[in-house]
């Protein structure tokens, strides 16, 4: 057993690196409490190291922490596979972008004294996400989900002097605890049904004839509540707009990309590992006929995107609007999973990469403008195109990409999604998604209209972003435009990362 544990440690180097740097940050914060401006750079260094370790793992497929008993069929606590590595890489890149984001954000600069705790909690989130992405045991899934949630509850309420922030945090923690309680009850029923907490064992046991279908479906739905809350799918999305509005902007951007990505990775692994009986040659998954995941996912995704898009129409606060838009995007991504094929999975991977770039970019511009004006109201964007030409163009490109119009990468992401849908003969669903995209055009273009066509009533000085911000935006903009035209590399990369450690 000890050999197995020592052997497994070689497969969790990224997680170990994150844990070590979490402790380093806490210690540095304690020892050098006078001067905290180095802390962001320490956390950047840690993330770069983690990123390199994750890159080293790409292509490896292996079980880690295999219990002694599993002689007949191999399974472990954690599963290292290309799919997991892709999502880990996505989380690490997002985190690096967010650390740069916080360096420019005034809200975070104002924290001064609490910078150490801020970064330690971000590391707590990263650790939770990395473990969650490759966890294949319900105990580990529950714990990592809670690690991610607890850190994000605190981060959402970090600006405790601002009333909105702590209230957002309370709402977040109540919704979060209830849904994780429901998920726990679901887990306990699954454990009772199968006598195991490992997804691979559960998979082989629920293929047996004597399983009670109704009970299993119910516990699957309870499990989905916990995950659906993390990805803010429709009936469990109520917390999203308020938390996104109340939290610091950098954390909002982080929640909307990274923690959503980890939630989706968990959902895909849960369905693929727990419920798929085999994968056909052309990449379609055949699920064990115990629970109709496809119907549930299609219903939830249509509900999610419709609710998200229509609620976004009336929002005057840009942060809130982007929150609803991120709910709608979760709906599109869920459709990619609902196809239940490798092609759909490729679409999801591409979508997440593009979504990361455009969503963080949009939030970054909003943050720069709110640094200057102190609010995120849409009226503050009047005449922005003239006052801050570069920011205006950048935001316009991000929003066009979020809508999914060519020649941006957002178009490619949606294109692959729709191709996957049509290949699977889900024409009606594809049409609904397309109509939703048209609706979303309205509220994205509304911002553009405010920026370029409405004259500002107030006199405002020009907003000139710093060199650092210019570089940051260019780093996000160039891939969006580049992959919008030449998208083979990202598609190829996603294709190579699509395999999960098999059934």
């Amino acid at each position, binding site marked *: 057993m000890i050999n197995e544990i020592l052997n497994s440690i070689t497969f*969790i180097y990224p997680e170990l690196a994150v844990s070590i740097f979490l402790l380093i940050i*806490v210690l540095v914060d304690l020892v050098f409490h006078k001067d905290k401006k180095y802390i962001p750079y320490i956390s950047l260094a840690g993330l770069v190291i983690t990123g390199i370790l994750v890159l080293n793992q790409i292509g490896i497929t292996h079980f880690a922490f295999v219990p002694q008993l599993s002689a007949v069929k191999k399974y472990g606590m954690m599963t290292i596979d290309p799919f997991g590595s892709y999502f880990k890489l996505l989380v690490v890149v997002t985190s690096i972008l967010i650390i740069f984001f916080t360096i420019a954000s005034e809200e975070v600069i104002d924290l001064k*004294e609490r910078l150490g705790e801020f970064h330690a909690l971000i590391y707590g989130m990263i650790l939770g996400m990395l*473990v969650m992405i490759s966890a294949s*045991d319900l105990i580990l899934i529950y714990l990592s989900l809670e690690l991610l949630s607890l850190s994000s509850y605190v981060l959402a309420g970090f600006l*405790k002097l601002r009333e909105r922030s702590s209230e957002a945090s309370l709402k977040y923690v109540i919704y979060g605890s209830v849904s994780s309680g429901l998920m726990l009850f679901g887990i306990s029923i699954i454990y009772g049904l199968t006598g195991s907490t490992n997804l691979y064992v559960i998979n082989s046991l629920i293929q047996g004839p004597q399983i009670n279908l109704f*009970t299993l479906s119910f516990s699957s739905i309870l499990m989905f509540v916990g995950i659906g809350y993390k990805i803010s799918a429709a009936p469990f999305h109520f917390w999203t707009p308020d938390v996104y509005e109340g939290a610091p902007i950098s954390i909002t951007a982080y929640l909307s990309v990274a923690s959503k990505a980890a939630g989706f990775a968990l959902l895909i692994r849960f369905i693929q590992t727990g419920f798929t009986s085999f994968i056909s040659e052309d990449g379609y998954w055949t699920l064990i006929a115990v629970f109709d995941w496809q119907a549930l996912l299609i219903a939830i995704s249509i509900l999610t995107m419709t609710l998200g898009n229509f609620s976004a129409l009336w929002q005057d606060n840009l942060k809130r609007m982007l929150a609803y838009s991120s709910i709608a995007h979760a709906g599109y991504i869920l459709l990619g999973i609902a196809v239940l094929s490798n092609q759909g999975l490729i679409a999801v991977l591409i979508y997440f990469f593009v979504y990361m770039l455009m969503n963080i970019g949009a939030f970054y511009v909003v943050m720069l403008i709110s640094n200057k004006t102190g609010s995120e109201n849409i009226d503050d964007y009047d005449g922005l195109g003239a006052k801050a030409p570069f920011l205006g163009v950048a935001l316009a490109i991000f929003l066009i990409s979020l809508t999914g119009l060519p020649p941006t990468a957002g178009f490619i992401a949606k294109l692959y999604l729709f191709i996957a849908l049509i290949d699977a003969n889900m024409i009606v669903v594809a049409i609904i998604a397309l109509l939703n995209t048209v609706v979303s055009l309205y509220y994205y273009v509304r911002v553009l209209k405010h920026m370029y066509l409405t004259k500002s009533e107030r006199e405002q000085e020009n907003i000139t972003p710093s060199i650092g911000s210019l570089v940051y935006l260019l780093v996000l903009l160039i891939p969006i435009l580049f992959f919008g035209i030449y998208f083979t590399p990202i598609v190829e990369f996603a294709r190579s990362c699509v395999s999960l450690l098999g059934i």
Partner: protein
Amino acid sequence: MILEYILFAILGLVAVVTSVAMITRPSPVMSAIFLVLNFFALAGLYLLLNAQFIAVVQVIVYAGAIMVLFLFVLMLLNTDSEHAILKEKRKLKFIGIFIAVLVFIQIGYIVFYSAPSDSVTKEIAESINAGKIETIGTELYTTYVLPFLASGFLLLGATIGAIVLAMKKFE
């Protein structure tokens, strides 16, 4: 054997009654005390289930630590009872009862059929063995060593978070 049934009946009844009392008492302090009683009854049920270690931890951690924290915060904040609200919103009461019955019927039905598919042990030795601190300790440090470490970081994160949020001033 008959003693087992009597104990189960008493403990089960206490658990059921205190849980209902907990959500219906308007005073938060009373709710907290009923919850502590409920946890004691659960510890008794765990003993009946041969889970000695969990029973002890239930009393020490839940009743001894978590509920003391709750009571401490309740005393600190000195919040009013919800008497007025519960009286004002009679509708809320009926909605509450309705939801409770609905959820209970659903879950009760489901739970009744969720008996383990096979391998329900008839061996009392195995069941007792599963609850021993030795077995749990071995499992914790071999098979479940990774979740164990993760829970350590969970507590670290929660500590940092709680201090950040509850500390009054940083300057």
